[in-house]
């Protein structure tokens, strides 16, 4: 559908020339086959639209998992100047701090071979998932506020996990500047009921095995070994985040005319970072991010409990350890060198993962010699990749890499294609046990609906923004 012509820069990058009211050009990370897929939807147009926003620095970027979203493309990265630039709730997304965390265990595949079904059933029973589920953790008014301020730290204090987990969580599981006063009563009410729930759609919890190691040194630093059992958790800020985004987007749409900014899409509505409205959004967004970190911390703790109980082993035998937790829907104030000058910028990552290199102070001390773990989940059948951030990401992509495989098929197309098939049985044949709340979710999320994860990851690896460390194969998956 998109008629915009891209110019090839090299094997992994395409230039979207600056035209019309675009303030900067765009760069899309893609190989030839991903480039061909871009013609099918409106995502390239969306990269161009983002380039219209005031204060955008260098380029409007897109990672190789790029696909058509609303407002920003999914896989979009854009950085804005703090003085003349903007923040856009649509550039973060409704699911604020949607992200992934990887839990490593001491177990090998052989240790659980006969227990996969029991484990999956127990996880599916214990971890609330699906549309409209409520969690075990019911928050009082006072606690609601604390979750928003303290994030994963609140969950640790409440008995879900240990302080050590915070060391390997992006931003230690709490973003600064969170102000619950800026969050609506509606958002808080929705959040009160959903803490400790997985959600629906593409959110999941997967038992995986480390299948292949590409970088021994980094794998060792991350505590990963071949044949190891790990758990990948993908969830976000649930209804609380959706409501915060919705509230601020409505507010910004209403007052857009006052800013004098002309937008090609209302969904890109934004406020200047230096304005009160912009600051209020960032303070509310930080609350959403913190809630998501608390949520994933609780989900991980429940997972550990299920493993210990089902396998009848002590915590020491399970040896569960949080490898890392990354967010992939966020706007953050970070420092970068632009044309030789150190600048603080507001980086929007909408379906993109931070990928900091070795030596960066924001990388946990235990990983600082190799770089930040980058967690890339794929479709249900493929499993995931673990990468490590590279210096080139700081120079080219504001310290960012891709976040997943990226959809290639619409949900309606996928459901149509899955009609008459048992996706669950097909997954079983591929050695992946799937338990899902709804058949339509399985159809929507079938492997063919996604791009080839290997292709996406290879582009990021070859472009030099993040390097492959390990490949994980899915053994079991629970979904909403």
């Amino acid at each position: 559908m998109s008629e915009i012509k891209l110019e090839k820069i090299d094997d992994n990058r395409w230039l979207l020339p600056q035209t019309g009211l675009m303030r900067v050009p765009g760069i899309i990370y893609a190989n030839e086959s991903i480039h061909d897929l871009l013609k099918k939807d409106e995502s390239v147009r969306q990269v161009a639209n983002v380039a219209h926003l005031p204060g955008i620095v260098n380029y409007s970027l897109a990672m190789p998992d790029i696909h058509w979203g609303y407002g920003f493309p999914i896989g979009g990265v854009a950085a804005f100047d703090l003085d003349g630039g903007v923040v856009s709730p649509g550039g973060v997304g409704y699911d604020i701090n949607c992200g992934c965390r990887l839990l490593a265990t001491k177990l090998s595949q052989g240790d659980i071979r006969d227990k996969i079904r029991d484990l999956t059933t127990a996880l599916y029973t214990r971890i609330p998932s699906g549309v409209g589920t409520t969690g075990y953790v019911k928050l009082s008014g006072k606690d609601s506020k604390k979750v928003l301020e303290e994030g994963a730290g609140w969950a640790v204090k409440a008995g879900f996990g240990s302080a050590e987990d915070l060391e390997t969580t992006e931003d230690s599981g709490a973003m600064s500047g969170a102000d619950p006063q800026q969050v609506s009563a509606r958002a808080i009410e929705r959040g009160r009921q959903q803490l400790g729930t997985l959600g629906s759609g593409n959110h999941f919890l997967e038992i995986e095995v480390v299948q292949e190691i590409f970088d021994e040194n980094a794998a060792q630093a991350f505590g990963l070994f071949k044949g190891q059992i790990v758990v990948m958790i993908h969830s976000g800020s649930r209804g609380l985040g959706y409501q915060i985004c919705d509230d601020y987007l409505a507010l910004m749409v209403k007052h857009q005319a006052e800013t004098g900014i002309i937008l090609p899409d209302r969904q890109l509505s934004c406020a200047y970072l230096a304005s009160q409205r912009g600051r209020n959004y960032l303070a509310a967004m930080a609350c959403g991010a913190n809630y998501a970190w608390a949520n994933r911390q609780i989900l991980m703790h429940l997972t550990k409990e299920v493993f210990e109980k089902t396998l009848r082993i002590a915590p020491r035998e399970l040896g569960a350890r949080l490898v890392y937790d990354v967010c992939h829907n966020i706007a953050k104030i970070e420092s970068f060198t632009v044309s030789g000058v150190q600048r603080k910028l507001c980086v929007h990552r909408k379906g993109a993962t931070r990928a900091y290199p070795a030596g960066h102070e924001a990388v946990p001390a235990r990983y600082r010699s190799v770089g930040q773990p980058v967690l890339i989940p794929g479709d249900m059948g493929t499993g995931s990749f673990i990468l490590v951030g590279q210096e080139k990401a700081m120079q080219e992509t504001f310290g960012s890499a891709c976040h997943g495989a990226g959809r290639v098929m619409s949900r309606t197309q996928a459901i149509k294609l899955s009609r008459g098939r048992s996706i669950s049985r097909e997954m079983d044949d591929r050695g992946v046990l799937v338990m899902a709340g709804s058949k339509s979710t399985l159809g929507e999320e079938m492997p063919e609906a996604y791009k080839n994860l290997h292709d996406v990851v290879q582009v990021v690896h070859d472009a030099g923004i993040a390097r492959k460390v390990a490949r994980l194969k899915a053994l079991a998956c629970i979904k909403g």
Partner: protein
Amino acid sequence: MTLYKLIDHTADLGIEVTGRTKRELFTKAALSLMDIVVERKGTPAGVEEKALTVEGSDPADLLINYLREILYLFNGEALIIGKCDITKCDNKKLAARLFLESYDKKKHVMKTEIKAVTYHGLSVERSKKGWKARIIFDV
């Protein structure tokens, strides 16, 4: 009567709704949203009535704000719209009486989680036959 037509969108879910009048368009859009989210089995239980007024800068903005309210009633208060009477509808303001039932696990099957009603690709247009809207939901 078919309420809506699905539009293909890679990550999200889009619908096209038509109506002879703006009131009919808005009513059908609300019922379409409900149809995507939840399915009811059998007759409705107790019904409560609620008056709603919504404002917007133009018909498209008004429609989005109306659907946002309806989605919140479901997501935030577990209330499902069975029927809605739009009593007033101009380009910037709408008043409606909603007939709501509480979500009941035994009677309702959740279908799709809609995170939000987006402004992306939004259109509300007058056609020869009446009104037509295109809306994309984030799922």
